[in-house]
């Protein structure tokens, strides 16, 4: 009998671990999504560079989080604010522990690491799009090291590592705040220090559009992100191996899908009404906004409510993109600050609509704390990099394109034309 119970626990452990790994692989896939989205929304002369940034940032994130980030976020903390520091990954669970007493582990520690490491890469991917087409490649990598090794893990510890935000009752299921708004805050600090692309704003304050070179890529990127998000939110339930948890994961999948659908349709409608055209890039940003909106709470809303939350996110993102672009003159080529930052805040607030455990004040506290920390810390780091190495390429390199300047090659050597 004990043998049988042990066997069942082992199977559950295996199922939960496998679930975690599959969901993690889906999230890893989001790295490809960000790459394609960003590569599609920049000009052809800066495409190889943004691709280099994306694949290398994912690699840097993996390495830094393994070395120190994971332990900062989930290791023994000094206090609920100050994390401890230690290095490397520990051993996995023994079979005996799993079949042991109450509170036995549900899944492999390493599967947990895998799931977590793809999250930090997601946060960092948000940054690359916003600073595209003008930031130095190696300055970006320097920032990536600090962000993925320290800035993100510290605020991550405050919430998911059981720190003070968690204790205060701040709710963020899969990371509208911890991941998305954090990435956007780091991006915002970078964009402010970096300035707009040459030619984006006329001397007379006029705003010029700089169309992305390859919209099929951008669309592919959005679909990849949409798919990967099933892992992002679906895996954040952490367990699947009993009826209640399985139902919860199913609910998360459905709501994630519905919010994206709502955001996509809403953004397209707004764009159509406002600009007179069905701006594809807005539909794409709308779908992503729907996904960000639901990420803080994909479990408690009904599917209808999730659609609505996503749709509101879709409206917000269009308004925010236009405002940041034309009023605040913050040049964000892919709309990352709006999609992940502004809509991330909406997502955190929307938790209060359906989750009885949420309190508006605590949600605001969380938003304020995460934003303040990430923005301030990032600002300082960008500033140091700016002073020491410089963060912006020369004007000439910007005209010629970063591909040739930084990477020594062209993304489309046979297609691209000389103008623009």
């Amino acid at each position, binding site marked *: 009998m004990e043998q049988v119970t042990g066997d069942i626990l082992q199977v559950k452990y295996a199922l939960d671990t496998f679930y975690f790994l599959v969901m993690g692989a889906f999230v890893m896939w989001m790295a490809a999504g960000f790459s394609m989205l960003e590569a599609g929304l920049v000009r052809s002369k800066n495409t190889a560079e943004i691709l280099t940034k994306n694949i290398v940032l994912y690699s840097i994130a993996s390495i830094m989080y393994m070395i120190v980030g994971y332990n900062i976020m989930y290791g023994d903390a000094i206090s609920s604010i100050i994390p401890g520091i230690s290095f490397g990954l520990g051993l996995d669970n023994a079979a005996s522990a799993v079949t042991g007493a109450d509170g036995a582990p549900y899944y492999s520690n390493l599967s947990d690491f895998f799931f977590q490491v793809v999250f930090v890469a997601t946060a960092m991917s948000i940054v690359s799009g916003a600073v595209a087409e003008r930031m130095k490649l190696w300055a970006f990598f320097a920032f990536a090291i600090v962000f993925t090794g320290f800035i993100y893990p510290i605020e991550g510890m405050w919430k998911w590592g059981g720190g003070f935000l968690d204790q205060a009752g701040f709710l963020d299921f899969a990371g509208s705040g911890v991941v998305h708004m954090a990435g956007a805050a780091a991006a915002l600090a970078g964009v402010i220090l970096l300035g707009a692309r040459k030619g984006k704003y006329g001397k007379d304050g006029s705003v010029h559009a700089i169309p992305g070179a390859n919209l099929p890529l951008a669309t592919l990127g959005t679909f990849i992100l949409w798919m990967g998000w099933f892992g992002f939110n679906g895996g954040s339930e952490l367990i699947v191996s009993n009826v209640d948890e399985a139902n919860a994961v199913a609910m998360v999948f459905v709501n994630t899908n519905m919010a994206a659908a709502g955001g996509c349709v809403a953004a397209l409608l707004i764009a159509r009404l*406002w600009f007179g055209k069905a701006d594809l890039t807005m539909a794409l940003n709308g779908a992503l906004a729907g996904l960000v909106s639901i990420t803080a709470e994909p479990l408690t809303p009904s599917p209808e409510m999730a659609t609505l939350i996503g749709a509101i996110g879709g409206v917000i993102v269009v308004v925010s993109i236009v405002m940041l672009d034309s009023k605040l003159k913050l040049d964000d080529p892919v709309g990352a600050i709006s999609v992940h930052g502004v809509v991330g805040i909406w997502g955190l607030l929307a938790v209060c609509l359906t989750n009885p455990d949420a309190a508006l004040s605590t949600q605001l506290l969380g938003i304020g704390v995460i934003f303040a920390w990430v923005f301030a810390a990032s600002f300082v780091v960008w500033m140091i990099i700016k002073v020491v190495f410089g963060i912006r390429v020369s004007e000439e390199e910007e005209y010629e394109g970063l591909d040739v300047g930084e990477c020594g090659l062209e993304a489309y050597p046979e297609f691209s034309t000389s103008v623009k």
Partner: protein
Amino acid sequence: MKMITAIIKPFKLDDVKDALADAGITGLTITEVRGYGRQKGHTELYRGAEYNVDFVPKTEIKTAVPADQVDTVVETIVKAARTDKVGDGKIFVTNIDRVVRIRTGEEDTDALS
């Protein structure tokens, strides 16, 4: 010999090519160009920001012909390329001193036949 250079609307290329072939013209070189003229391009909104498309896609057709065929060719092109809407394009006639066919070294009208 004269070089006839016509700037036309891209979708008229096939009509012009066929009309010229019917008129006995069998050598053409075409280039994709962009034009700016009375047909003014348009302003679009991309992500809510203005986007001027000042230049309109056009196709340039060049054909070298003996001087005595200029009138026929010009007329043929005008007829085939005309839509009566602004932006139909222009034809320029210029002088050529010398023509050489690379394959044979033939010169001038021989090179054109």
